[in-house]
C-alpha cells in the first residue's frame, strides 16, 4: 500500500484502523479523519468498501449442522465405549430365536419365493388352491374338523377301529337291499319279451319309408308272423288251469304273386 497522506492520515494508519472502523468502535476525530481519508484516497476507499462487503458476505453464512453420528463416533474413537446416555438413547433390540431362524431360512427361501412370485406361477397356485378349496367344500371337509383331529397313537387307533366298524355296518345294512334289487331284476328279466324292440322298430321304419310301393318292386317277406303272434298271445294269456282252455286263433297270410 502506498504511503500517501490524505486529511492528516496515512494509508498504513488507515489500514490499522480499518477493522475497528468496521466493528464500529471508532469515534470522534479519529472517525472523521478515517472517513475523510476513505473518500479522498483512491486505494483505501475501495479497500474499505470491499472489506465491508466481504464482511457482510461472511456474516451471511449460516452455521452448518454436524452429522448426527459425530458425537457417537468421537466418543467411540476416544473412550472406546459408549456412554450410558448414548446407550439409553439408542433402543436396544433383542433378537429372538424366531427372528434368527427367519433370517437363516430366508437365505435360501428368497430365490424360491422370487420364482413363485412370477405371475404365471402365482396364477397356477391360485387356481390349484381354488380347486382344492372347492373340492374340500363339496366333500364336506371343514377346517374346524381338521383342527379337531388328534394325532396321538391311541386316537389314531380309535379312529381306525371306528371307521372299520362303520364300513362293516354299512355293508351289512346294504346287503338285503342289494338282494332285493337283484330279485326284482330277475323277475323283470323273466317277464320281459326276448328282444322286442329289435324286430318291431325296424319294421315300422321300413313301413313308413316304403309307404308308397306302387313304383317299386315288392320285396320278399321272409318273416314268420305266426310265431311272433303266438308268442305275444302266450305272454298275454291269463294263467289258467290248462292249455286246452286257450282260444284257438287262426292266422292266415296273403302273398301276392309277382
Amino acid at each position, binding site marked *: 500500500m502506498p504511503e500517501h497522506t490524505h486529511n492528516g492520515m496515512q494509508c498504513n494508519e488507515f*489500514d*490499522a484502523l*480499518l*477493522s475497528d472502523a468496521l466493528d464500529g468502535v471508532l469515534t470522534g476525530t479519529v472517525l472523521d479523519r478515517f472517513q475523510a481519508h476513505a473518500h479522498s484516497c483512491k486505494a483505501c476507499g475501495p*479497500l474499505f*468498501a*470491499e*472489506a*465491508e*462487503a*466481504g*464482511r457482510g*458476505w*461472511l*456474516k*451471511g*453464512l*449460516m*452455521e*452448518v449442522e*454436524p*452429522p448426527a453420528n*459425530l*458425537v457417537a*463416533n*468421537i*466418543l467411540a*474413537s*476416544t*473412550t472406546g*465405549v459408549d*456412554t*450410558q*446416555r*448414548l446407550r439409553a438413547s439408542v433402543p436396544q433390540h433383542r433378537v429372538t430365536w424366531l427372528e434368527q431362524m427367519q433370517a437363516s431360512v430366508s437365505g435360501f427361501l428368497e430365490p424360491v419365493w422370487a420364482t413363485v412370485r412370477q405371475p404365471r406361477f402365482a396364477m397356477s397356485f391360485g387356481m390349484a388352491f381354488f380347486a382344492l378349496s372347492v373340492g374340500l367344500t363339496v366333500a364336506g371337509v371343514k377346517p374346524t374338523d381338521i383342527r379337531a383331529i388328534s394325532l396321538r397313537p391311541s386316537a389314531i387307533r380309535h379312529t381306525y377301529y371306528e371307521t372299520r366298524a362303520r364300513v362293516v355296518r354299512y355293508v351289512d345294512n346294504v346287503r338285503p337291499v342289494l338282494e332285493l334289487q337283484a330279485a326284482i331284476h330277475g323277475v323283470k328279466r323273466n317277464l320281459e319279451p326276448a328282444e322286442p324292440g329289435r324286430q318291431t322298430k325296424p319294421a315300422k321304419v321300413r313301413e313308413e319309408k316304403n309307404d308308397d310301393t306302387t313304383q317299386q318292386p315288392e320285396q320278399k317277406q321272409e318273416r314268420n308272423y305266426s310265431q311272433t303272434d303266438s308268442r305275444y298271445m302266450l305272454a298275454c294269456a291269463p294263467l289258467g288251469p290248462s292249455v286246452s282252455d286257450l282260444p284257438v286263433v287262426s292266422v292266415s297270410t296273403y302273398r301276392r304273386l309277382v
Partner: protein
Amino acid sequence: MEDVQVIAMLVRRCIAGDAAAWEEIVQTYNRRIYNICYRFAGTGDDAEDLTQEVFIKMYRTLSSYDSSKGAFVTWVTTITRNLLVDHFRKTKQDRMTDSMDTAASEHEDAQPLSEQIQDQSAPPDAHVRSREVSETVHAALARLSPELREAVILRDLQDMDYREIATVLRVPEGTVKSRINRGRAELARLLQRTYRQVM
C-alpha cells in the same frame, strides 16, 4: 461465553477418568469445531474426519491444558487450527487467491465458478436462493489463502476477538487485523463479478 469454573471442573473430572465429563465436553464443542473444519477444509467428509482427530488429540493432551494461560475455547481452537494446518500441508493445497474465472477442477468439463453461477436461473424460492448464495460464498472462501481464510473464519464466523485470534495464530494483533481485512476484501472481489447486480 464459557463459564471458566465449569469448564475447569469438567476438565479435572475428565482427567480423573469421568466419561460423562468428557461426553459433556464433546457435546459442547463438537459443533464449533466441526464448523471451523468445514469452512476451512471445504467438504463435510473432511470436516468430520478432522473433527474426530481434533477430539482425539484433545483427549490425549487434556492434562496439558492450563486455565491460567487462556480460555479453554482458545486452547481448543488452537488445537483445531494446528491440525488444519497440518492437514493442509499434507494435502498440499498450496494455492493462493485465484480469480473466479479459473476452473475449479481439473476435469475438462469443469466450468469457472462465475459461469456456474451465471448459468443458474433465479430460483423462485428465497430459501433455495439463500442456500445457493451460501454455497457460493463457501466456495469463494475456499479460494482464499490459508492465512487469510483462517483469520476471517475465526473472526467473522466464530466471533473470536483479535487477541484470541492472535493467540491461536501466534501472530501479533496488527497482523491479525491486516489478514482479516485483506481476506474480506479478497472475498468481496471474488464475489463481486458475479453478484454485481445484487450488490
